[in-house]
Every structure is written in C-alpha cells, then in structure tokens.
C-alpha cells in the first residue's frame, strides 16, 4: 500500500529555495538527497523542480539577473538595457558567465511595470534603469557589494485616491483597530456582513467573498486553511505589491477576519518569488502581531480562537495564480490546476476546506468593518460597491497605482492617467479585454467594464501585432502543459501570428485563428487556456483594418513555405563539404 503523505510535502518548496539560494542551482545530488528526505522518486522531484522557472538545474550564477520580458518593459527600452547588461557581464541572455559570476535571464512580468525598465538581481529590485546605471550596478557587484545594499526599494507611485471620505485603501490605518469588531460579532455575523457588502474576488474572477466564506464554514472539518493569493502574475499588475508595501497590516487583519469567520486555524500568504524582497518586512510584522496576541493561541473575539500564518514563497509560474494550481504548488507538487471536481472550500489544501482570496479582497475586509457596511455600500456602483485598485502602465503620463471609485467613466480615467493618444488599452492584462476608441465611453464597474487590476496603455505608434505576439509568447511560456488545447493550441496560434507578422497570412488564416481560439477556449482545463486568446480575438474585432492590411486573398499555395529558405541549410552543408583552402 502507498505509504505516501506521511511526510509533510508543503515544506518542499522552501527546502528547494534554500538549496537554490545557497548553491545557485539544484543539481543531481541535491535532487537525490531531497527526494529521499521527502520519500519521493527522483523523477517526481525533478518534475516539481523543472516546473518553476526560478529553480535552476544548472548554476545560474552568483548574481542572477532577471530582466522583465513584459511588453511594457520592451516599449520602455528594455532592449537597450539588455545590451548594456550583456556587455557589462559578458554573457548573452539565457546564459551564465564562465566564471559563474553572472547569469542573465528573462522573466515574465516582475510586477514593476510602473518603474520600467526594471530587473531583479538575486530577487532584489532595480528600477528605472538607464545604461549608465547598469554599468555602475555591475561594477559595484564585481567589487563585492551585495545586491540588497544597492537595490532600489520600489517607490509606491500612488497617483490618485478618491476624495478623503471616499478612499478605502490608501489612508492611514491604526493597527488592530478593526479587529475589535471580532469581539462584537459571531463568525456567522461576520460572514453575513461580508455578504452584505457585496465584496467579490478582486483577483479578477469576482466570486462573492461572503459566499465563499459561508461555503467553507459549512464544511465541517478539524482543520481549515486561509490562503492569501499574492501571486499576481498577470502582466501589468502590481497593485498587490503596493498594498503589501503600504498596508500589509490590512492583509494580515483581513486574514484574521477570514479565519475567525470560517473557523480556520492556519493561514499562509502565497507570495510570488518576484516579491521576495518583501519577505523580511512581512515576517517582522507577523511577529509583531504574534507578540500583541493577534496571532497564535486564544485570539480575542466573541468566541476566542487560534490562528497563525506563515509565508509560502512561489518559484515562478504564472499558472499558480489559479487557486487549485496554487494549492498544488503549496503541497509541494507541480503547479497544475485541478479538475474542478471539488472546490477548494470543499477539498483544498491537504484535502481540507480552504479559502483562497486575493490580497486586495482581504485588505478590503478590515476597511469595510472600519467604515461600516452602510458607508461602503454608498461608494461605487450597485453591483460593485467600494473602490478598485488599478495598476497603470504604458504610454501615459502617470504610471502607477490608482484607487478609483467603481463606476468611473473611461474618458475621465484616461484623462486622470494622462494617456497620450491612446489607441489600445489592455484591460485586466493579456487574458482580459482589448479596448479601442469605441470603449472609451464605458464605465469601469461590475455592470459594464470589470477589471482585475492591470491597465496597459498603448498609443498609436505601437505595433499591435507585435503586442499580440508578446502576449502569445507569454501564454506559450506559462501554459502548465497538462491539457493539449492550451499546451499546443497556444503554440499553434503563436505560429499563426508569425504568419501575420511576416505577411504570409491569407484570409483563411484569420478564420483559422477565430475557430482555433474557440476550440481552445471551450476545451481548456483552466482559466489560462480559456482566456489566453481573448485579446487576439478582441483585437480582430476592434482593429480589423490592421489585420486586413497583413492579409492576402486565399490561394492554393502556402506562402509560409519558402523553398529558398528550405534549401539554405543544404546549400551551406554542401558548400562546406566541397570547399577547401587551396
């Protein structure tokens, strides 16, 4: 009989991180050793390690540089910065220098879109890079400075909050102040109040939070878990980073509320590895809460309860923002999404009822209690009360964070962010909506135009096809690979975009794109595949002129096949073999 699950595999990721940090790679011997410790087969562990792009099987250099590969970064001059990095370190992107000093890699959005070009060096952030600055940084590292000594703590660029009495998130907060509400309410009452507030999942799915808590409460179990999803990976999003920098106490208290409401005694923050530099601060704060008796045993409430939490570090996989994938990742497995046979509130982390909430959702909870549900309901719109945090980047004057009241008109918003000749707005990231002029009169609200948090602005000089190609590259890279429509479908769509870019496409290719996207959408296992072709199809709808320009009439010959190109290699080989030096 299988004797599995005796060993707690949820510690696996942190063990792997320890090795990766110290040895700069997880090599053959490490795999053998760790596999034995955790009673796994070597290959199973290999599968876990190779799933996450921040775990390296070969040495990734004493200083590992991750350049942002997001489209916003590319448009703010990443190419130039990359060249300077390559020159200063002497290695090309994707490689490690011979002396194992520097490793240079690209990584999908690192959550610094408002301060591009940016990079992470040993997970310390460096923002607003210039060629001169890069040369200096590399020089300092060579002299023996530590990245943590010379890095930039990313400035919170909060550009706008509503009038004072309407701001929810970004205003001063007195620690522990809203936790007093726990003493006046039973858990069920807390759930009812959250339900009344119509708070819904701010990661972008907008599932009613109160309802989720209620389901979890109803499932009887000795152990329940609260997980905060701080794995914001949607390109262009950084709202959770700013919240974690500015108001981590709101998050902790939100989780305490959730724990009390559903009857959970253990919690964790699944923090994306890109935000590792926040770990120290967060841990210190958790300690502070423990000391004050707000975490640990016997937390003061109408029904006193036990609850503690820890930080779980991701290792680079966009898919882990999907809640079931996130849970698998926490369990020390590959971050593959589940079959949706059960919801996490039924069988989640370690098979126990589990709540997974976004940072913004949890941070809103103490604020709602602080201001009172009635006042909260007066803000925003009928369906989406309150305010929303939007991460703004791209071609606009004010790159940074905006806290807006739900219901704001797009025109007003565009003026607020100082958009310059906006042609296309990417709303909710590449898996969201592609907006054109026709949408600029709509309202940002649950009734009309909902948003998870990412707003990328592109002006009329930007090449739309290039942007779509970048999105597609992202999805090909980040697909977990468990189902064929997403794994290969996205790859095939990517090839079609190539055809468009190279002018080989015919009208039939556009029909193919639309048909294939639909198949991928319908049959994919999780949100990644279901949403990955959204912007491509939106763009076809909204910017038909750009597509028509690169399409030709249907013919009987495939233009993508080029005979000269196909025989080039042969010519070269024969040439080499037949020529001599005489």
């Amino acid at each position, binding site marked *: 009989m*299988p*004797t*599995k699950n005796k060993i707690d595999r949820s510690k696996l990721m942190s063990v792997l991180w320890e090795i990766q940090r110290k040895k700069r790679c997880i090599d053959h011997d490490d795999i053998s050793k760790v596999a034995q410790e955790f*009673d*796994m*087969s*070597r*290959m*199973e562990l*290999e*599968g876990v390690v*190779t*799933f996450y*792009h921040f775990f390296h099987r070969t040495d990734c250099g004493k200083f590992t540089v991750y350049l942002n590969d997001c489209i916003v970064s590319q448009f703010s001059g990443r190419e130039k910065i990359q060249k300077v990095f390559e020159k200063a370190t002497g290695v090309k992107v994707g490689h490690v220098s011979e002396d194992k000093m520097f490793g240079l890699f690209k990584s999908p959005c690192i959550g610094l879109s408002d301060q591009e070009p940016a990079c992470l060096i040993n997970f310390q952030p460096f923002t607003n890079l210039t060629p001169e600055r890069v040369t200096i940084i590399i020089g300092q590292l060579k002299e023996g400075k530590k990245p943590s000594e010379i890095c930039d703590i990313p400035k919170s660029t909060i550009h706008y909050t509503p009038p004072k009495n309407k701001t929810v998130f970004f205003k001063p907060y007195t620690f522990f102040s809203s936790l007093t509400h726990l003493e006046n309410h039973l858990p069920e009452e807390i759930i009812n109040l959250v339900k009344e507030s119509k708070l819904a999942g701010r990661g972008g799915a907008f599932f009613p939070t109160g309802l989720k808590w209620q389901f979890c409460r109803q499932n009887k179990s000795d152990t329940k878990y609260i997980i905060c999803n701080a794995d914001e990976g949607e390109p262009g999003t950084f709202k959770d980073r700013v919240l974690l920098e500015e108001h981590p106490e709101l998050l902790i208290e939100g989780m305490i509320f959730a724990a009390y409401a559903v009857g959970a005694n253990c919690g964790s923050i699944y923090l994306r590895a890109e935000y590792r530099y926040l770990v120290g601060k967060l841990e210190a704060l958790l300690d502070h809460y423990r000391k004050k008796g707000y975490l640990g045993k016997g937390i003061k409430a109408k029904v006193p309860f036990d609850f503690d939490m820890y930080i779980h570090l991701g290792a680079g*996989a966009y898919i882990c923002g999907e809640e079931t994938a996130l849970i698998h990742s926490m369990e020390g497995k*590959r971050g*593959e999404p589940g*079959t*949706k*046979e059960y919801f996490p509130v039924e069988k989640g982390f370690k098979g126990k009822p589990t709540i997974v909430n976004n940072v913004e959702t949890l941070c809103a909870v103490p604020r709602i209690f602080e201001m009172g549900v009635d006042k909260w309901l007066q803000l925003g719109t009928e369906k989406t009360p309150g305010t929303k945090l939007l991460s703004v980047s791209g071609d606009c004057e004010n790159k940074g964070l905006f806290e807006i009241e739900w219901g704001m008109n797009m025109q007003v918003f565009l003026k607020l962010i100082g958009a310059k000749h906006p042609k296309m707005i990417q709303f909710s990231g590449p898996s969201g909506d592609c907006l054109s002029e026709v949408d600029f009169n709509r309202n940002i609200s649950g009734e009309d135009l909902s948003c998870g948090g990412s707003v990328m602005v592109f002006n009329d000089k930007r090449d739309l096809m290039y942007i779509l190609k970048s999105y597609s590259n992202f999805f*090909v*890279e*980040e*697909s*977990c*690979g*468990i*189902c*064929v*429509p997403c*794994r*290969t*479908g996205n*790859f*095939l769509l990517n*090839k079609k975009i190539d055809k468009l870019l190279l002018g080989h496409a015919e009208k039939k290719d556009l029909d*193919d794109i639309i048909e*294939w996207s639909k*198949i991928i959408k*319908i*049959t*994919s*296992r999780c949100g990644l595949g279901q949403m990955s072709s959204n912007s491509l199809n939106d763009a076809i709808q909204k910017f038909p002129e750009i597509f028509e320009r690169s399409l030709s009439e249907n013919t*009987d*010959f*495939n233009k*993508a*096949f080029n*005979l000269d*190109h*196909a*025989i*080039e*290699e*042969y*010519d070269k*080989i*024969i040439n080499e*073999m*037949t020529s001599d030096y005489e």
Partner: protein
Amino acid sequence: MNKMVNLRLDGKTIKAESGKNLVDVAKENGIYIPTLCYFRELNPLGTCRICTVKLNGKHTTGCTVKVADGMEVEVNTPELLDNRKAIIEMLYAEGNHFCPTCEKSGNCDMQNLAYDMGLTVTRYPHVFSDKIVDFNPKRMIMDSNRCILCKRCVEEIKTKAGKDVFSFVHRGIKTRVHIDYEQEDKLSESEALHAMNICPVGAILVKGMIHEQPFGDRKYDLLGKNIIPKLHNNQVRKNENEKFIVATTSLAGCFGCHMSLLDIDTDILDIIEIVEFNKSPLTDIKNFTKQCHIGLIEGGCANSENVHVLQEFRKKCDILVAFGECAIMGGIPAMRNFVPLQECLEEAYLNGVTTEIGANVVPGHEDIPKLLNNVYPCNEVVKIDYYIPGCPPNAHHIWKVVKSILLGEEFSITHDEFKYD
C-alpha cells in the same frame, strides 16, 4: 445505493444513480462520450479534454461530472463533435505519430478514436518537435514521440513503497513524461506490463513483450466491422463524351501507394473506361500535356524537386488528392525531421555501415535535387483537396474515392477500410 435522479442527456430524460460518473451513465443509456485519459471512476484525470460536454450551458469534461438531479447535458452537438475531433487532430499534430511504424498500431485507443471520427488529416500544421526515445530503463522503453500526456501512468503506476515511476517534467509545450530508472527497476513483470497496457497509445513499451499481432487480429481491427456505413443516393454527374483525366506522382514516398493503385487487378479495365492517365509513372508520361481533372500525390516533400512537382500538380490539376501517410503527414521520411540535416547526410554517405570505406563524398551537383531542411507534408506546401490515409491505402479505398470525386457522388468508406497503417 444512492437515490435515483432524473437528468436530460441530449434531450432524452433518463434515470440514474445520484453521484455516478456521467461518462458511465451516458454509456448505459446508449450515448457514447469518447474518452482517452479516463480509465477508472475514482480520481478522473481530466487531462485529455475529449469528453468535453455542455453541462447546464457550460462546457466541462464529462469524466469529472457526477450526475445530479435536473442536470441538462449536451453530448453530440455539431460543435462538441467538432471540438472532439479538433483535440484528436491537435494531439496528432503535436506528437510524432507514425502509425505505420508503431507497435501499438491497431491496438491504439487514440488511433481508434481517430478512425471513428473519420480523421484523414489534421487541420493544424505538424509541430515535429524533437522528442527522445528512452531505452535506458531496464525493462521499458519510453517513446515521448507518441506520448499524449494523459497522465494515466503517472497516477496509476507506483512501486510497492508508493513511489512514482512515471512523472511529468518541464512545463508547457516542453512537458514530457520521464521514467525514474531506479523505481522502474523495482516493478514486477506484471506491473510493467500493466503500465504498457494502460498507455492509450504506444508510448510505453516493455522490452521483449511487444506482441506483433497480424493485421485483422488486433484490438480495433474487428471493431467497426459491424458498423454499416450510411449509403447516400448517388448523384451521377452528367455524362461527357470525353474521359476524365488523371495524373499521379510519387514524391518522397516508397512507391508503395502506387503499387497499391495497381492492386485493383482487373477492375482497372472498368476504370480506364472513364479515365485517361496523363503524367504518371504508370504511363511514363513525364510532362503534363493538358489540364487534368484530378491529381494523386504519393509522398511528402523532401527535396526541391518534390516541391516543384507538387506545385506544378497544383497548377495543372483541378483537384489534388494526397494519398498515403507520407503525403498527409510526412510519414517515414519525416522521421529525419528530428535529426540535423548534416548528421543525416554524414550518416548516409560517410559513417553508415554500408558506406564504402574511403568514400568520403556527399553527392552534390547542380543536377541533383537539393534536400530541404525538413520533410513537409503536402498540405504545408500547397492546398490539398482530399486525403486518403493508409500505408498504403487499400486499392479499393483509393479508387472508390477517386471515382466518387470524379462522378460527383457522395461516398462512404467502411470502418475496416479506413487505416493509418
């Protein structure tokens, strides 16, 4: 026993035990939901996505649904049927499925599903990615070319100590199933055979235990024998005084398909009543002398001459038919797509065991056609109108298709005529 519930399947109201798996419930009620990864009711994998159905208006996989009261399920809508076919096509395009060389051909679940769906060609271009065949395990061979990543082996095959033998490694398009050598060694003979048997394709083989079964005796050869193809009312095209003109060619193929053309024996006499051959190896006419009604293409494109000939056929023939695996997906010649061209040439002309000692010449002359970097299926070079699978296709199958196209008849191919090998 759980209580009985009512649900609607494709408009039919049925009674079933609450909580039972939808795929099984449908089967009991005469509605077939095709599956590939599903093999036991516990812990459905939901990886292959073929059983995608519409449940209360939303798409989901049938194998992960437990029936409940009032469910409204759509199984066989045109859209869902096409989605299923599309997924099989995508699996064919993604992997390197050379049915004629596969030990599991005829016993392969995926092949059988493709037969059922009448799949002649994939709508997607073949990816031809380089995948390894791992011979290192003591008892097994893991051929990633054929693996469809259904996860059956990963979930099912464990050692006595409960450790995984097969695991997913890497991510996205690079995801593969690898074998853990140490754990594989601990499997018993019957456990190893079990692994081979639960693999729905030919990715897992046990060395020395691969039984070659003759054609006709394999698991899926006999299936479908009882299926009577739907007959259509023939609609004969108007008689013309002139005969139909047919051209044929063999590109990068073995001429086996042309041999099969001749297997029609004396029926050829009927055919030449209505057909006249133009450019074809059968007539030895080297150049087109007139526009043809139909062109039959054997083999894919491996060199520059193949491409020229194919393009000429496209221009000179109103309808192009690709026949045989090589023309449709590259076939055996396309196996070189995973080896760099330089290595191919060196192996063939310099280092191969049959190479004459001291002969160190790779032939290169302007009169010799140039090899392409890859072998291309015909439809990736020109538009192809019809496909006849098989290696080679059965003679009657070929002529039935040709005749029906020429006469404008609707036709059906019987299940047992339809083969990829």
